[in-house]
């Protein structure tokens, strides 16, 4: 049995009776058992996965109606709530938090008979891009375990890339789906802000957070997006997509489309040689597919990373304030502490990156400094939106490498926060402007993956997936060996 199949192939195989759901789930757990000690993609597992698999098998054999996912194993980033199970956000402060409810994206998958096989590792509260900030230790890149898998949805990317499951749900605030997708050579889609309900997603920066699929193929992303997208009465920010079918005409091609190559994101000074070459190859492929590629400047993107960190730190400072160690938290003796000093003591136990954001988040929106930092960041955001709107009047897509560099070694960047931040340069714009963006695996260079990012206009996932599919078809990449 090949565990490396796509979601759509899985559905066909189950329908054909090639194997049972139980067999596939059992095999997946065997593989996890075999390799996850090394990769550390998962933080916890679903104890009743096998039971559910048997149930679905029974439904299939008795010709009852079965949901579209036919029991396929899907992993979920551990910042999404699943009723009765731990949701740790890879933080010690939520080590024992058991969610009393299931979030919308997960429950929609569940309703279509996906099997949530386990919860995956991330940087603490999704702040980071390597999983090195997980309080439970980092995940490893299956392409080379000395290298980071990217983040913050690193565990999700690893679990899909290493064939521990069929697909995963990640979350993306500044690149957290696309970055690890690129580093692990899988497809990662960050949908339009509001297309997928955030109900059940533990907020990091709630004006930018978005859940999206992480899959082996572009079609799989379309397939999962069909299930998880659309208006939700539990999230006031969701948008009605009129049940759009993202798989329909996905092979329409991109002949005649106009593609903007974002100058600032393809600047040779900022890209590693391998990434620069891959980008040029990708441009050539797009042209071969009949698209017209042209350089376009996105001037405000120069300030996007600064604005991104200012806004996310402000919102994180607020969103994470509830972790005051009173209703959930660490073992901590409160005697002798006055209320505020107790809270500050307890909160100093959050991980280093979270503490860094809390400090920045306490400063940049404060009364004396908001004008210089937070309000300026909001201005950048609004100008960036104006610029993007203007550009999409002329172009159908914007492209860039997903990440300016290839995966780096553990410890290589962790002590240099600024160079760390610049890794986000190409991804944050889509979050700040709310537009959809996808990372498509494009090349393996020196044994490590490179992904290409495509961005499209607000709510234009359909055409975004068509372009991604067209690009995907032009490349043939090796399987990871682990």
């Amino acid at each position, binding site marked *: 049995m090949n565990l490396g199949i796509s979601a759509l192939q899985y559905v066909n195989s189950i329908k054909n009776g090639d194997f049972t759901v139980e067999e596939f789930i059992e095999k997946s757990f065997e593989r996890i058992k075999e390799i996850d000690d090394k990769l550390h993609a998962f933080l916890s597992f679903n104890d009743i996965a096998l039971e559910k698999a048997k149930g679905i098998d029974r439904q299939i054999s008795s010709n009852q109606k079965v949901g579209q996912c036919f029991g396929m194993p899907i992993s979920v980033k551990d910042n*999404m*709530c699943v009723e009765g199970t731990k*949701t740790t*956000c890879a933080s010690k402060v*939520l080590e024992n*938090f058991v*969610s*009393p*409810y299931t*979030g919308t994206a997960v429950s929609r998958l569940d309703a279509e008979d996906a099997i949530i096989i386990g919860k995956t590792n991330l940087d603490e509260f999704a702040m980071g891009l390597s999983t090195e900030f997980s309080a439970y230790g980092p995940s490893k890149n299956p392409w080379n375990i000395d290298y980071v898998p990217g983040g913050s949805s690193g565990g999700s990317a690893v679990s899909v890339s290493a064939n521990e499951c069929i697909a995963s749900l990640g979350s993306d605030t500044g690149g957290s789906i696309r970055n690890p997708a690129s580093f692990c050579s899988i497809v990662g889609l960050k949908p339009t802000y509001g297309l997928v309900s*955030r*109900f*059940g*997603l*533990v*907020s990091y920066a*709630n*004006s930018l957070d978005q859940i999206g699929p992480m899959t082996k193929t572009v079609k799989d992303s379309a397939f999962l997006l069909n299930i998880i997208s659309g208006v939700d*009465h*539990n*999230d*006031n*920010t969701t948008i009605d997509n009129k049940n759009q079918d993202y798989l329909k005409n996905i092979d329409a091609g991109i002949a005649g489309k106009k593609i903007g190559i974002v100058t600032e994101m393809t600047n040779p000074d900022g890209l590693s040689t391998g990434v620069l070459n891959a980008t040029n190859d990708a441009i050539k492929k797009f042209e071969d597919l009949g698209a017209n590629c042209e350089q376009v400047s996105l001037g405000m993107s120069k300030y996007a990373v600064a604005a991104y960190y200012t806004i996310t730190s*402000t*919102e994180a*400072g*607020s969103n994470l*304030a*509830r972790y*005051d160690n*009173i*209703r959930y938290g660490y073992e901590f003796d409160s005697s002798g502490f006055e*209320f*505020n000093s107790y*809270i500050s003591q307890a909160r100093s136990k959050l991980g280093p990156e979270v503490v860094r954001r809390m400090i920045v*988040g*306490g400063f940049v*929106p*404060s*009364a004396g400094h908001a004008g210089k930092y*937070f309000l300026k960041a909001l201005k950048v955001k609004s100008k960036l939106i104006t610029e993007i709107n203007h550009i999409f009047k002329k172009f159908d897509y914007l492209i860039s490498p997903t990440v300016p560099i290839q995966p780096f070694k553990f410890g290589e960047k962790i002590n240099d926060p600024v160079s760390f931040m610049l890794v986000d340069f190409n991804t944050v714009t889509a979050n700040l402007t709310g537009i959809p963006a996808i990372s498509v695996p494009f090349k393996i260079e020196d044994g490590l993956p490179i992904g290409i990012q495509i961005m499209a206009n607000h709510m234009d996932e359909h055409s975004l997936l068509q372009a991604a599919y067209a690009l995907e078809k032009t490349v043939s990449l090796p399987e990871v060996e682990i």
Partner: protein
Amino acid sequence: MAKIGLEIHGQLTKLESKLFCPCKADYRQFEPNTNICPICMGIPGSLPLLNRTAVEKATLIAMALDCKTPHKIAFFRKNYFYPDLPKNFQITQLNVYGNTSIGWEGKISVADKVIRIRRIQLEEDPGRLIYEGANEKTKVTLVDYNRAGTPLVEIVTEPDFETPHEVREFLNILSDLLENLNVSDPGLEGAMRADANVSIEGGSKVEIKNIGSFHDLEKAVHFEITRQQSLVERKIEIVQETRHWDDGRKITVSARTKEEEAEYRYHLEADIPWVRINDDTKNQLQTHMPESISSKKERYVSKYGITSQVADILASDRYFSELFENAKNQTNAKDIANMITTDIMGLLDTRKKRETSKLSSEHLSDLVEYIKSNKITRASAKLALDEIIKNGKSLEEIINDLDLGHVSDKDELSNIITQVLNEEAKAVKDAKLNPEIVNFLVGKVMQKTRGKADPELTLSLLKKSLGFD
């Protein structure tokens, strides 16, 4: 001269659910921490879901207070750590980056003065802290989150008050207004709370918090003015600070925290998209706006000839004005109004009594009708009222049950009068010297007939018997 401004927090108690979740807005009926859900407890991953009716009710208040209202409202987060705040931020509104709160620049007349309203905002109430324990060692603070997320309107006035009395007047008017709009029940414990800012010439602004009732607020403001005046007289500087009202000692005490340095890190609440309030909605609200108290009062006076004082009392109270509206017609309105203000208000002077009362508008119109047509006396009517409130039976039934039928039969009454005159020989003698004594004798007759005797007939028969004619 003192300058006083107010910040009033009024709960929208008439709403079904909390501001951002389906839990009940009226939390008072629940055991501690049972009217809660993942949203109002801020459980990770939960999102606030805006109660649109709360926005409409709050807008109604803004319109009734002559405020300007926006086309789009926004919510902000006010960040601070406090045990009664499940998320450690409060979702509220802010007009610093443009006017996006429920309303601003309104006004309200208090006696002959106009008090300006600076702004009205919609926000969530925090939970409740309960301090328990007899001594230092056993002292604990308990938190009840049932109230967390209850819809609250904050109404901020300009510092337009000059005396504690004006403050009290204003609060009474505002509380009547909220009740009349059917958005709040200000009589409920904690449904209306107010903080005051007090400053006098040559001093700085002092905020008084933690005041339990309007009555105490008036006292607190009075105390604070006196305190500040005595400081000025002794040339001691008045510091800008927050003071708490000490309910036990009836004084204000310095809160000793540097609240002016509080840093709330306000920013937009992205989980709640901007809410459009278009002209259609506003017109709709305007059309369905309950008649204002002043217009009701005017109508009662001009249309029914009710005295201005009675009309004022009646119009200001939603419960009694509703009772009046349903019972009255063009001919009996004045009598209905008088009966409500002289008899019924005294009998139904608490919320509980009103809630259990069986009195209907039909009862009321019947009572007035029966008195007018001499079927019962006013005194009997009072007895009947007591019964009606208790059991809700029809007036006719109660008259039978209690034998309240009017004694207007001359012979029967004459017999009773003869009895009374025999029993009260001394009074009869005194009456020759002091004609006022006759009223005492009327009273005795009434006693014997349990109030059923026709007073006029009794008087004339008595006078005849005493030879006064």
